[in-house]
């Protein structure tokens, strides 16, 4: 429901990238088949021509063929192996400030022409007709290199990973009473063509493993979660240890069995590198999306060139980071992804743009036009958003904090871009007392105001970590990455129940 929508939400799909080991990838696996184009360019040209037949100014066809496999293990059993196929095209027609959109699962010429007619219905100025479109194909290299296409791996091998994860998690402690684990891979081939003559392709592979543990003790039950996810193939498991991923999830649950309630009130917070990137995704990432800016629904509107954060903050959104969860060769409008500096030494340098918002401002897209599937319209979305590393020793940052909270793992968050108020949930945290990390804390949300929190960052570590996530906006979910070094915020409201 639109009315129940949340303006920017980050869901917990996290990982640690610190445990990636470099090993020689196996070459024994067969190379995946090269498949034919999704639709013949000549057919696409005719459909685009029809889409503009009623007087539209711009037309675009987005074609997608996505295959996925999932395996789930729960309660010591392989519960389910599933496979899916989604295939279709979305067509949009733009007239002035109006966009017409239709999608179809029928990729025949007649199916595409019918969708083109439906999308064109918003343009009424011209009579029925056809415009000539000539497409020019271009190839954009992928930032991620896939060595082992997941479809070449047997389901048995995928099942085996989860059994190993279950065993490793249970071996972490007798208090681990429940383990569930999930494996997923997908291959998404897309083709984007538009009436400006653009014709672009991408072949996107994603592989992930997640483990959730429940630990039970005298004080009740606690949960721990961990994910490894990259835009690479099955060689993921040569680089990331399944056992280590499971152990991290188990440790996270076990450590909280002795946890005390988190404090209630404003305290200094040190956030460990990795999942803390969720802070920036919520505190300013969504607010720097141009659709919120042009509609006066962002706390960062009108602040270009101004100091909006501590000078220690340099924030980047970059869809070209090799192998990361939010990386692709092109965005879902056919624009090659790029590295965009959003905040440099605390000064706001730019927003993120998609095709339509950029066109209106007479500039080019920053490669941030993304969509969940061919059934959705693209909009401005983040790719991999991260804070660059600074100078401070992470251990020193903790040592120089008298009393506060050390957040080792964040679980997700949500923001209201118009007010800048955002929350993020800590799923592994400890008290800092006299410069030392001491007792574990129970889960709680933290709340802050984006521009305010960015100014209160007074230490940025020389380490760095990324994590994968699923970002929800206006009912659409897309895979994103985020990252940061260890950092300290001088004061954030921690939403626990104990006196601060």
């Amino acid at each position, binding site marked *: 429901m639109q009315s129940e929508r949340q303006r920017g939400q980050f869901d917990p799909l996290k990982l640690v990238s610190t445990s990636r080991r470099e090993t020689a990838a196996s070459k024994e696996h067969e190379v995946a088949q090269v498949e034919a184009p999704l639709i013949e360019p000549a057919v696409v040209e005719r459909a685009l021509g029809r889409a503009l037949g009623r007087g539209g100014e711009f037309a675009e066809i987005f074609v997608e063929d996505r295959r996925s496999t999932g395996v789930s293990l729960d309660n010591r059993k392989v519960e389910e192996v599933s496979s899916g196929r989604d295939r279709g095209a979305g067509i949009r027609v733009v007239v002035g400030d*109006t966009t017409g959109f239709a999608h179809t699962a029928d990729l025949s010429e007649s199916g595409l022409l019918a969708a083109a007619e439906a999308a064109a219905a918003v343009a009424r100025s011209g009579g029925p007709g056809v415009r000539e479109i000539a497409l020019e194909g271009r190839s954009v290299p992928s930032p991620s290199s896939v060595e082992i296409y997941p479809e070449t791996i047997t389901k048995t091998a995928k099942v085996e990973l989860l059994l190993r994860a279950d065993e490793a998690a249970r071996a972490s402690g007798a208090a681990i009473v429940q383990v569930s684990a999930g494996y997923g891979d997908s291959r998404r081939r897309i083709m984007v063509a538009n009436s400006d003559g653009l014709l672009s392709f991408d072949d996107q592979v994603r592989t992930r493993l997640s483990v959730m543990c429940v630990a039970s003790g005298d004080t009740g039950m606690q949960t721990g979660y961990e994910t490894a996810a990259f835009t690479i193939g099955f060689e993921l498991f040569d680089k990331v240890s399944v056992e280590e991923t499971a152990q991290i999830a188990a440790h996270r649950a076990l450590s909280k069995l002795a946890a005390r309630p988190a404090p209630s009130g404003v305290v200094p917070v040190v956030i460990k590198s990795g999942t803390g990137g969720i802070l920036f995704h919520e505190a300013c990432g969504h607010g720097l999306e141009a659709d919120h800016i042009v509609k006066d629904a962002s706390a960062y509107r009108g602040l270009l060139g101004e100091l909006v954060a501590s000078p220690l903050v340099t924030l980047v959104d970059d869809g070209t980071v090799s192998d990361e969860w939010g990386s692709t060769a092109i965005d879902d409008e056919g624009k090659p992804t790029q590295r965009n500096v959003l905040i440099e030494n605390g000064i706001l340098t730019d927003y993120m743009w998609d095709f339509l918002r950029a066109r209106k401002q007479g500039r080019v897209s920053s490669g941030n036009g993304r969509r969940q599937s061919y059934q959705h319209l693209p909009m401005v979305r983040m790719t991999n958003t991260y804070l660059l590393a600074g100078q401070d020793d992470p251990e020193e940052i903790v040592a120089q904090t008298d009393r506060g909270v050390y957040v080792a793992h964040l679980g997700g968050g949500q923001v209201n871009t118009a007010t800048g108020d955002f929350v993020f949930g800590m799923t592994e945290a400890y008290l800092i007392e006299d410069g030392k990390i001491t007792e574990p804390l129970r889960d709680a949300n933290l709340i802050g105001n984006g521009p305010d929190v960015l100014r209160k960052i007074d230490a940025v570590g020389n380490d760095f970590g990324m994590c994968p996530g699923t970002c929800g906006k206006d009912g659409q979910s897309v895979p994103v990455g985020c990252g940061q070094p260890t950092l300290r915020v001088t004061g954030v409201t921690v939403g626990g129940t104990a006196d601060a």
Partner: protein
Amino acid sequence: MPELLELAERIAGAARPGEQVEAYVSRERETDVRVYRGEIETLSTAESAGVGVRVVIKGRQGFAYVGDLDEARAREALEEARDNASFATPDEHVGLAVPDGHAVTTLDLWDDALSEVSTAEKVELAMALERLVREGDGRIREVVSTDYGDGQGEVAIASSAGISSTTRQTSCYLSADAVAGEGDDTQTGVGYSVGRGFSDIDLAVAAHDAIDRATRLLGAKKPNSARLNVVFDRRVTATLLSVLARTLSGEDVAKGRSLFAGRLGEEVGNTALVLVDDPTNALAYGAAAVDAEGLACRRNVLIENGRLVSYLYDTYSGRLAGTSSTASAVRGGFKSTPGVGARALSLQPGDLDQAAILEFIGEGLFVQEISGVHSGVNGVSGDFSVGAEGVMIRDGRLAEPVREITIASTIQRMLQHVLAIGNDVEWLPSAAAGLTLAIGDVAMSGE
């Protein structure tokens, strides 16, 4: 509609000896209009459909789906599901739903007139709402988006275990996302109206709601931390009930992943609490005649006078727990297998309206909106900590607005500390009904 069931039955009919096959076939037609500053920003029309196939062979389940109604591809999905089943661990409790004799309630969830409404009328309705909100209060600075949407959904489920069912429903919504400003201060509010058909939409309610919610918080400050009593707005209560329902999933309980595991028959809350999930109530947004496995939906009492009397089950979790399905299977569409969920939760209403509850509470916090529910509520440990905004209650009345706070407790404590239940039941576009609810002894974190 008949063609969906025929397709489902043909796929289910392909079951081999010793195997069970279920086909879930669905089709949706949708129109979505977004307007901005008196112009159509986007207009989408779409039809989507697909087939999800489950196969169970000797206690092993496999699943596959295809995103269209092409029979050849649906049969490929059946083959794929069959193959997938061979990799599952055998589990004696795995199996498809078997008809259990419960009669299907006749529910009229389909508005024929919806398909007669022209696109122009839909656009005009959205534009009218945008005008009402923009002009309704001088402090409304922007209406970020005004959306009209409607949908017609049809589902057919057939299985070799004897299930053969169809359901269909229409829905319609209108919403506006408003930004109010005064000086440097900015606040937002969403107002909406929903129904089965076009004529159910109440323009005035949606406009008033958007304006009121956005302007009510203007001037909000961050208060000092305190331990206090809170009053939840109807919408917030509906969200909380949906969260509570997840902890009552028989599957999570059986797998030791719920704080309510092993507590059946025990007192879990204030004796005034009666929690029911009744999808056969046509007023509920989530009303349904049959569940996602094709069993007749029924009224399930979960908490009675504070005592936990039942969990929710689908077929698998029912068998796992040594009981039977409560017809509480839900699924996200043809792309997923069934899971357990509530559709139409409600608390038995009390006898006070919202004003009377505020007066009864005297001093505390009225919570208009919560955020971070996903990251801040843990159904296993019961820890509860969410972002909030609202208005302080002083002398029994709404006083100054507050923002950037969290409220925290545990689910267990909150159920014990129910202070008052409102009589203002409102069925909202969620799996639960809203009503005003007062809860005691909550930690509010601010400055």
